[in-house]
C-alpha cells in the first residue's frame, strides 16, 4: 500500500496551528512535500535530476490542468517558502508567513483535486 501524501499535508496543517517557530517551519516543510509528491505522481514525473524545478517546468506545460501556469507558479512559491523555512535561520517565520504559505498550498491542492 503506497503512502498517502495527503497525510503529510494533514500533519503540516496540524503543525501550523502551533504557536511555535519550529512547528511552523516543520509544517511548511511537510506541507510542501505533500503537495509536491501528489503533483509529481499525478504528472508521472520520475527524474532524480533537479526534480523540483523540473516538475515546476512540466506543470507549466501540463494541459491536464485548468490553470497550469498558476499551478506551476504556486509550486515555485511554495518551494521558495519551504527552502526559507528549512535553511534560513534569520528570516522570521511567524504565523503570518505560515498563513501565506498555507493559503497558497490550499489553492494548489484545489487546482490538483479539481482536475483528478
Amino acid at each position, binding site marked *: 500500500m503506497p503512502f498517502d501524501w495527503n497525510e503529510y499535508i494533514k500533519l503540516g496543517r496540524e503543525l501550523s496551528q502551533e504557536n511555535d517557530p519550529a512547528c511552523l517551519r516543520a509544517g511548511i516543510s511537510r506541507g510542501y512535500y505533500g503537495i509536491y509528491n501528489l503533483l509529481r505522481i499525478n504528472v508521472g514525473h520520475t527524474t532524480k535530476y*533537479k526534480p523540483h524545478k523540473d516538475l515546476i*517546468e512540466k506543470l507549466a506545460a501540463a494541459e491536464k490542468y485548468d490553470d497550469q501556469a498558476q499551478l506551476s*507558479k504556486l509550486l*515555485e*512559491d511554495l518551494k*521558495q517558502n519551504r*527552502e526559507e523555512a528549512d*535553511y534560513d535561520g534569520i528570516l522570521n517565520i511567524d504565523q503570518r508567513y505560515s498563513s*501565506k504559505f498555507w493559503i497558497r498550498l490550499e489553492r494548489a491542492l484545489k487546482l490538483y483535486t479539481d482536475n483528478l
Partner: protein
Amino acid sequence: MAQDTAANNLRYLEAFPKTAIESIWVKRPDTSEYFRNVISFNQVKVYPVERSVTATELCIADLLKEEGYKIEEKDLAGITEFMLANPQLIQELKNAPEVIKSYFQNSDLKLKLYTDTEEEYCNLNILILNNYSVEEAFAIEEELFNKHFKDVYLKHKGKLNIREVSAN
C-alpha cells in the same frame, strides 16, 4: 609574489594615517570600474579591489531603481549578473511597476534574486511589500498574475516571478 605585493601595500598603508574614506562610488582613473570605501591619504587613493563593482552593475542598478525597485546592496552583484544573462527581462521589469501598483496600492517593490539552495537555479522575484490581510493579498496577487503576469511567467519559463510579501 602577489601575496608579497599585498603585504607590502598593507605595510605602506599602515605607515600613513588615513585621511579619508570615500563611501560613495568612485571611478578609478583609466578604467571603467567603480569602487567604494576608497581610502585617500597623502593625495594617494587606494581602491579596495574586493569591493569593486563594474560600471555595468551601476548602470543596471540605476535603471532598476529609476523604475521604482528597491535593491539591497548585497544583492546588487547577483542581480546584475542575472540581468546580463537575461537581458530580455529588462523590458518586462520596466513594464511591471505601473501594473502592479494599480493592484497593490501603497506597496513597495523590491527585487530579490532567489538562488535555489538544492538545485542551483536562479529566479528573479519582484517582491510586492504590502500591508493587506493574508486573504486579500493572495486574492489580489492571483488576479494580477492571471490577468497580466501569466504570459510573462510562461514566456520566460519562470525566470521572472511576482510574490506578494508582508511589508513588516
